[in-house]
């Protein structure tokens, strides 16, 4: 049973007032709020057994080792993976950098990304273009931001790696990942999915998708900051050379040699963020408990209502498809000739509505389209229609004076 009022009680940060007004948080695409279950799980680590996992044999060490093992198993299960296929990272960006630096890429190899990639899935490849001489191709979306499968069939030929954002943080459009992976695999290309924006909003099943690699961040799915996951098919992980090595990545060393641990440990150099991983586990459990059907239903309701209201306001243009159902929980909008930071600041100052403004780390797309920036509203299941109404009223007033 999806009881919004009860659910909202779990989020301490939306149950407070600033300057006598309630906080309205519409920036979940950047960072979701944290339920107290996640915060308490992390507290438990620090209060009960703040020790190292996997090396210390004392009681605290054993307790943490057990907890991290359980967390890895739960997180793997969350995306229908095997626990050996889960590499803990600091975030999706680190996962993508790990892949860019670990995959066996040589001069002339072709990487294909979309035209709406977050800098995290753009710059690592651009760096390899300069360092190794690989080729980086951009796959253009349709004019409304949707994915063109027919064009993709052509574009993927001769490509070694397809690395694409699953749900765009710019316009909320989700690409048809399953079909893309099938086509790419037929062409012999590996597929990396940046699921940072999708994993918290839709059920991800790596087996069903048959994806080769998938990355996501904890902070966008109710989890703590500084946590992330790289999923890789085990046979691929086994072949990958580690990007960072050191403590926890080796079985033993001599002065002349070393023997690496198997995946996933060989990729997890140094002491891990145990509290973060335990918090991420709690977040996964919380999401499972809420259920993605409920999450989707609430987000769609909010996005449709807000889209309908925003389109009534003169001069506002929404980035991406007109159909709110194709934009996940995101509405990215702009007004020609206006710095949207102004809108974001005024929303914050007037009614405590927190939205993101700027280029959302997709500078390349804004540069290409010659759009200065946008304001981005991103909902999550804890938002309400009443909050949307406050936002719309304020937006109408603000656009009337700017």
């Amino acid at each position, binding site marked *: 049973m999806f009881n919004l009022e009860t659910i909202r009680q779990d989020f301490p940060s939306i149950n407070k007032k600033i300057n006598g007004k309630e906080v309205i948080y519409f920036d979940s695409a950047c960072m979701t709020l944290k339920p107290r279950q996640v915060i308490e799980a992390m507290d438990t680590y620090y209060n009960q057994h703040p020790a190292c996992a996997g090396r210390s044999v004392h009681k605290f060490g054993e307790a943490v080792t057990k907890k991290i093992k359980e967390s890895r198993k739960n997180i793997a299960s969350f995306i229908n993976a095997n626990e050996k296929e889960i590499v803990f990272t600091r975030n999706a960006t680190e996962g993508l950098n790990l892949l860019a630096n670990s995959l066996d890429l040589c001069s002339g190899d072709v990487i294909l990304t979309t035209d709406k990639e977050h800098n995290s899935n753009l710059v690592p490849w651009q760096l390899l273009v300069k360092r190794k001489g690989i080729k980086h191709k951009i796959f253009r979306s349709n004019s409304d931001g949707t994915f063109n499968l027919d064009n993709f069939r052509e574009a993927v030929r001769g490509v070694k790696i397809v690395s694409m954002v699953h749900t765009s943080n710019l316009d909320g459009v989700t690409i048809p990942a399953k079909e893309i992976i099938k086509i790419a695999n037929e062409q012999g290309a590996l597929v990396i999915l940046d699921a940072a924006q999708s994993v918290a909003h839709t059920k991800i099943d790596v087996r069903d998708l048959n994806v080769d690699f998938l990355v996501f961040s904890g902070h966008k799915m109710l989890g703590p900051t500084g946590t992330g996951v790289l999923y890789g098919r085990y046979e691929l992980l086994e072949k990958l050379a580690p990007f960072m090595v050191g403590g926890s990545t080796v079985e033993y060393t001599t002065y002349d040699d070393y023997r690496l641990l198997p995946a996933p440990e060989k990729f997890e150099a140094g002491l891990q963020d145990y509290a973060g991983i335990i918090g991420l586990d709690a977040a996964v459990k919380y999401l499972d408990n809420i259920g993605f059907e409920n999450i989707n239903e609430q987000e769609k309701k909010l996005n449709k209502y807000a889209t309908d209201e925003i389109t009534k306001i003169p001069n506002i243009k929404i980035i991406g498809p007109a159909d709110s159902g194709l934009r996940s929980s995101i509405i990215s909008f702009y007004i020609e000739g206006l710095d949207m930071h102004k809108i974001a*600041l005024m929303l914050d*100052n*007037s009614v405590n509505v927190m939205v993101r403004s700027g280029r959302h780390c997709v500078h390349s797309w804004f540069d290409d389209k010659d759009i200065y920036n946008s304001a981005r509203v991103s909902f999550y299941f804890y938002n309400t229609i009443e909050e949307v109404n406050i936002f719309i009223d304020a937006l109408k007033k603000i656009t*009337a*004076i700017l």
Partner: protein
Amino acid sequence: MICIISLIVFSLLGLFSATHRALAKEAFDCVSRRFTFRPCNTRFKEKIKSKILVYLMNRSTFLARLANKHFELFSWIFFIFVITSTFYVIKGGYNYYFYGSCNGLNQSGFCAFDPKGENNKITDINQGQCGAVEKKEENVTLSGMDLSIFPAKNIGSKDTVVLIGCYECDYTRKAYADIQKLVRNQKTNYIFAHYPAKEQTNYLSEIGYCVKKEYGERFWSFNDYLFTVDKVEIYEQDYMEKILNNFGFDIARINECVKSPDTVNIVSRQLKEMKKTHLYGTPTVFINGKAFVGPKPYRVYLHELKKFILF
């Protein structure tokens, strides 16, 4: 422009509030970046602008729209106001410190540091009554006044202090102690002239003159006493006799001197000489010829001697 205004405004408010102190720091960063030709990357201007617009928007859409449209113009206007008022505040503070009035030496008018105008209060000699009066802007000067006929302590200093006051005037009494302290500590020449601002104390001019004539330097302690004793005691001549008696002066000798035509002439001459200064109230103090009308704080007199004046 708004960064500079904010820096000034928030710096002042920051003296009393930590929140404004943080904003002042941000404004300072913004201003220093501007002055070093670097972009202001804190979005400070937008933050402040949005706060102002939201404030206006909640009251009047028209005003908010107007403010948004002409924000730079309003910023400039406000900047000029801020700079101008800051200049006047600094000037006022300077004037108050060095001259005892925000508006300049001997200038009346409202002064925030001296709201009651205590440092400019005088006994108006034209009305012949004690009390606060409006400032008059005559050019009070010592030139043309013969100082040799007044009681003087000439110790050969390069500095000379002249006090024209009335025994009965509260404001002269207020200034008197500071003048004595100044003369004593700075070792200046000193000339005292009694201007009877109230008719009933006219006779004290003759008595003062005669005490000086008959008893020489003992006059100064007698003079000090007249400025410190309860005013009631100097209104009546009967009381005065007691005072003279207490000082050990020969009353008959003093009375004889007072009645002498020479005394009447010289006191009358003293009065004429004092009027040549165009003074309009007591106390009027001249320090090396510069007039200070009203009881100024001690530091004002002192700084005139020390010459620590900027403008």
